[in-house]
Every structure is written in C-alpha cells, then in structure tokens.
C-alpha cells in the first residue's frame, strides 16, 4: 500500500465515522427506557420479565408518548455480573439512544451501571437493587433509588426484633456488595439499640446448601440469626433452618430481605411468623389490589413483587417529570423529578432527596400462619407503618458528595 492509498483509506475511514455520528443522533426520535435485570437466574422472579411488564404498563398509562415522541421499552439480562451490566449500559447509551435504565437488581451491578450513567448524564431508576451505598458513596445526580434500600430494611426489621428481645445476632451473609451492606447496616442498628453481634459467615452467591452455615450459627448460640441475603439464597436458608430445628431450638430468624415470591416458595408452614419489611404488598388497599389485578392479567397470574411495583412507579414519575421539564436531558429531568411529589398506588406524597433516595413509607409485616390465610397469596399481616423519614438514612449521615454538610 503506497502513501496515497493509505491517505485515501484514512479519509474514507474518517468519512465513515463522520457519517455514523449523525445516524446515531437520528435515532433520537423516540424516548427509550431500558429495563436491565436478572432475567434468568437467582433474582429473576423479583424483577425479570415482570419488571418489563410493569414498565410497559406505566408507559401505556402515561399515553405511550412524551414530548411528541413515542416511548419504547427494551430489556436485557445483566446476569448479575457488573462487567456485563456496564457493557450493556454503554452500548445502550452510546448506540441505542437509551434515556433511562430501570430496575437494576444485584447491587454490585447497579453501582457499576449507575457510574456509567452518571458519566453520560443519563438516568438510573433503581427498584430491585438494594445497597444503601447507591445513595451514599456512589450517589449520582441522575440516579434515583426508588423502592427500598438496605438501610431501611435493617432499620425497620432489625429495630423491631431487638425491641422484642433479640439482643445477640449471628449473620449469614451473601458475599458481595449488597450482603455486606445489609449486614453492616443491620449490625449498626443492633448495636445502637443495645444488642451485640457474636459472629458472621460470608456465603458465595447462589448457594444451594446452607446446612454448614446454619450449624455454625446454631453453635454460636446467638438469639437471632440475621439472613443478609436475598432471593433463592434466603428461601433455602429459611427452609433448611426449619429442617435443622433452629427455630424450635429457641433461635430466631430475621429475614432482612424477603419478598412475597420468597414466602410463596417457602410455603406458609415454614415461613409463618417471619417478620419482614416491604414497600408494597398487593393486599393493602383498593389501589394496591387494583394494580395487582391488572399486573396478574398481563403476567401469567403472578402477583407483583414490590420491586416490580416500584418499576411501574419510577417509570411513570420519570415520564411525568420529562413532560414537565420539556427535555430529555437526564440532569434536568431528575431535577424535575425531585420537585414533583410522587403519588401512585404504592407511594403517597413521596419525595426524592438530593442524594437520589425516594422517601416513602415502609411497612413492617408478619407472615400469616396457614390457618390465618384465607385466599391465594393472603400472606401478610401489617404490623406497623414506618414513615419514610424514620425508615431511611437521614441526610446528616450520608456520605453522598452531593449532600452539603
């Protein structure tokens, strides 16, 4: 290849690149919302395709168009791997014109994706992801943490159990960002309320057999065994704890993150008496029931989890704010989201703080016994409503750089 043809090739390449750029911008004739979660593995029933259904319901209810452009919902499986999630996010933002990514269970992935979004001024609406660091150290001006977080779970469930006399704790912890955060948050509440932590064990994610860890917990003689895990891991640990006579032996289980699908998998016989914290339960009032009924009709008769319900609320609020702000610019839309009060079937006068945390009521539930349950999915009785400003971490304790102390 001589110098001239090299030059020509370079010129052609430059032309090709130049031509590609306007094409990417031309794709911006619609608003695209990407649902990213675990579609195939341990957390897929918390969000999965159900979250896509919820996002589409919100788009439908909003009218299918915003700023005169059609709204499209796409989805992808991040396989619970931060690198996979970050790679999909980059492609979505840079090539596919995605404006916001929603759901994001598995905190390690949520943290990675929120970082990618922050660099580009794009929006993350996190519903199923739980780590309170998402609005702490890793907060973002374009990140909103919608449904719950580890701080609230630890605070509401942890405090209630210590107040009932569960003073010494042993933790069985999922060995990644979310599990460690949940353990740390709960341990802090336990200690602040006068309890002690006698030990803990870190278990690899997606573990089938917990007997070894339960035995360690049993031998620790702690009054309470805190399960700082989620999904299938929580279900298996509770089920096997029953088998090993943990509760009969006088120890108590604290499921720190338990969803209605987990209770269903456990069966009421095993799950009864368990205390748990959620942001939404389908059978709370007429509005929550109405949403559940619509959702069930769209999604094989499954009741919505709080994470899926949160996806609906987050998408609807995002679209409302976009219409009010009259722009797709992530920073401006999220600023508008903070201004508007949140009101839907599950959130009443909620608000978004500067660190991205949605402040809403949280509910302390107890799982019913088989005798108390009268109809399908009649699983919870409500013990307490905890106002958002008591459930979530106060801004004064926040490590978020956006908060000025």
């Amino acid at each position, binding site marked *: 290849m001589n110098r001239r043809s090299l030059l020509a090739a370079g010129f052609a390449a430059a032309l090709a690149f130049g031509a590609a750029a306007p094409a990417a911008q031309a794709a911006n004739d619609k608003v695209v919302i990407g649902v990213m979660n675990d579609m195939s593995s341990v957390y897929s029933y918390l969000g999965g395709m159900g979250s896509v259904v919820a996002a589409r319901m919100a788009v439908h209810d909003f009218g299918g168009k915003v700023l005169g452009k059609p709204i499209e919902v796409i989805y992808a499986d991040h396989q619970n791997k931060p690198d996979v999630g970050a790679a999909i996010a980059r492609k979505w933002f840079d090539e596919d014109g995605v404006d916001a990514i929603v759901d994001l269970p598995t905190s390690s992935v949520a943290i990675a994706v929120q970082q990618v979004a922050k660099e580009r001024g794009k929006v993350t609406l996190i519903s199923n992801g739980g780590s309170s660091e998402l609005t702490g150290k890793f907060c973002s001006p374009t990140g909103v943490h919608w449904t719950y977080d580890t701080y609230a779970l630890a605070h509401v469930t942890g405090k209630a159990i210590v107040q009932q006399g569960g003073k010494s704790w042993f933790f069985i912890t999922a060995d990644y960002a979310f599990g460690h955060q949940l353990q740390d948050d709960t341990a802090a509440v336990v200690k602040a309320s006068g309890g002690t932590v006698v030990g803990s064990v870190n278990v690899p994610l997606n573990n089938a057999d917990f007997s070894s860890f339960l035995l360690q917990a049993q031998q620790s003689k702690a009054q309470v065994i805190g399960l700082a895990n989620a999904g299938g891991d929580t279900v*298996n640990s509770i089920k096997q704890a029953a088998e090993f*006579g943990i509760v009969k032996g006088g120890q108590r289980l604290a499921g720190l993150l338990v969803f209605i699908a987990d209770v269903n998998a456990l069966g009421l*016989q095993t799950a009864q008496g368990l205390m748990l914290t959620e942001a939404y339960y389908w059978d709370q009032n007429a509005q929550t029931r109405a949403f559940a009924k619509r959702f069930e009709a769209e999604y094989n008769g499954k009741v919505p989890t709080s994470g899926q319900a949160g996806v609906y609320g987050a998408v609807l609020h995002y679209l409302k704010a976009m219409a009010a702000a009259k722009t797709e610019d992530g920073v401006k839309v999220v600023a508008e989201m903070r201004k508007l009060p949140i009101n839907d079937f599950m959130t009443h006068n909620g608000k978004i703080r500067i660190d991205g945390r949605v402040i809403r009521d949280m509910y302390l539930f107890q799982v019913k016994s088989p005798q108390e349950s009268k109809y399908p999915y009649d699983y919870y009785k409500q013990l307490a409503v905890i106002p958002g400003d008591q459930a979530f971490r106060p801004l004064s304790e926040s490590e978020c750089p956006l908060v000025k102390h």
Partner: protein
Amino acid sequence: MLEWLHIAVPPAPALFGQLLIGLINGAFYAMLSLGLAVIFGLLNIINFAHGAQYMLGAFCAYLILNYLGIGYWPSLLIAPIVVGAFGMLLERFFIRWVYRLDHLYGLLLTFGMALIIQGVFQQQYGSAGQPYSIPDLLAGGQDLGFMFLPNYRAWVIVASSVFCFGTWFVIERTRLGAYLRAATENPALVQAFGINVPRMITLTYGFGVALAALAGVLAAPIYQVSPLMGSNLIIVVFAVVVIGGMGSILGAIVGGFALGVIEGLTKVFYPEASSTAIFVIMVVVLLVKPAGLFGRTV
C-alpha cells in the same frame, strides 16, 4: 499460625457436624455423578442434560403431589420411571444419531436439550422455587450431642448409599453388567451373540436418567423445586466425575462423597471459597493424574 491467617479452628464437635453435613451433600454428588458415569462409561455420551433431568425428577414429584395428590413415597418410584422413559425417548430419537461422532456433538446436543427443558419450565413456573415439604414420617430429627441431625438428611445418606452400591454391583459384578460392558467394547460381537444392543443402550440411558430423577425427588424437600436447581449443580457434578475419572463407577461414588466432605470443610475454614474448592481440586487432579483418580488411561 492459623490465627495469623484469620482462620478460627472450631472445636471438635463442631467439626464432626460439618463432616456429617459434607457427607450428606456428597450423597447427592455421588448419585448424580454416578448416573453421568454410567452414561459416559457405557454410551460414551457426555450427558449435559443430566441437571435438567434431575430437575425434572423434582418437578415430577411436585406436580403429581399437587395435581394427583400422590405423596413423597410413591414419587420415589414414579418420578424416576416417568423421567427415565422420557430420557429413553430422547435417546431413541436424538442421542442415537451422535454415537459415532466426536464426544463434542453429544455434549452440545444434550446441552441444548437441557436449555430447552429448563426454558420450558422457567416459562411455566418462573425461577422462584415451588414448595415441597418433608414427608411426615421423616420430619424432626435426632440430637446427636454434637449436632442436630434431621431425620430426612439421614435418610438421604442411607438411600443414596444403597442406590450407589446397588448400581456398582449390577454393573461390575453381575452377568447383565458384563453384557453392558461388553457391548460398549465391541457392540458388533455382542450383537452376534443374539443380544439386542440398541435396546440395551436405550435402557441404560433410561437408567442413568432415572438415577438423576431419583436424586431430584430426594432433593425436593431440602432445596427449592425450581427450574434452575439442576443447572446450579451440574457443573460441580461434572467436576466430581472428572476428578473420579470419566466413566468410572467407583470413582464417581467415592469422588462424590469425598468432595462433599472437602467442600463441607471449606465452608468452615474459608466459606468464601466453598464454591471454588472443588474446581481447584479438579485442576490439581488433572495436572497430576489426567485420567482422574479412578480412571483408566486409554
């Protein structure tokens, strides 16, 4: 010195408990790797659908309980028969065509089948587990002093030991087993003696699959009955088979129990590594003895 590594040495009774639990998990590994070893040893098929067939066993028990009201004990017989028959259909219509090809084709074919079976169940039942309770007869447990042993787990050890030994005995020590082994070495010759080799191979595959289904029924009350229960286990079980020696019946059984115990100990000393320990051992075994601990070098 151990303290320097931040590893606490548990008291002896605690260790006994952990060893026993390791043995229980080993029982599952042994049963599953046994089925794989039978299928590989006699059919030369790397049966990647084994995890899905294990899951089918558990689901079969769950479905006949919820739709027909048939409980745990009959399931131990019915599920292996139903799933084994399904396995024989797969063998008859699909797997048969790849016997003469490279191992890789059998692996890919069965892997694809596993994905399809799993996908269908995931579509229908979601990824969350379905409940299946321990039969009343085996509820409760014994206090052994150093640990509380649930009756059901004790039953799992006994049942799987019996099945493992029985299988080993039939294949290595009976006339039927001799036919099978001979048919693997030289099918034409065995056929010449008037034995229907293709039918025997179909039945062998069905038997291997039935073993997986049986393990699934045994597992149903302990774990969740979920579409992914097999895919989580299959990789570990393959590592067990490789460590024991591909196709070696005894290697699969001994390897299964031994690795269960080793994994159990890892959970005490360094729990974070418990999901990795087996693979580290696999690498070491492959470096030192590539045919596996009990394998014959070809």
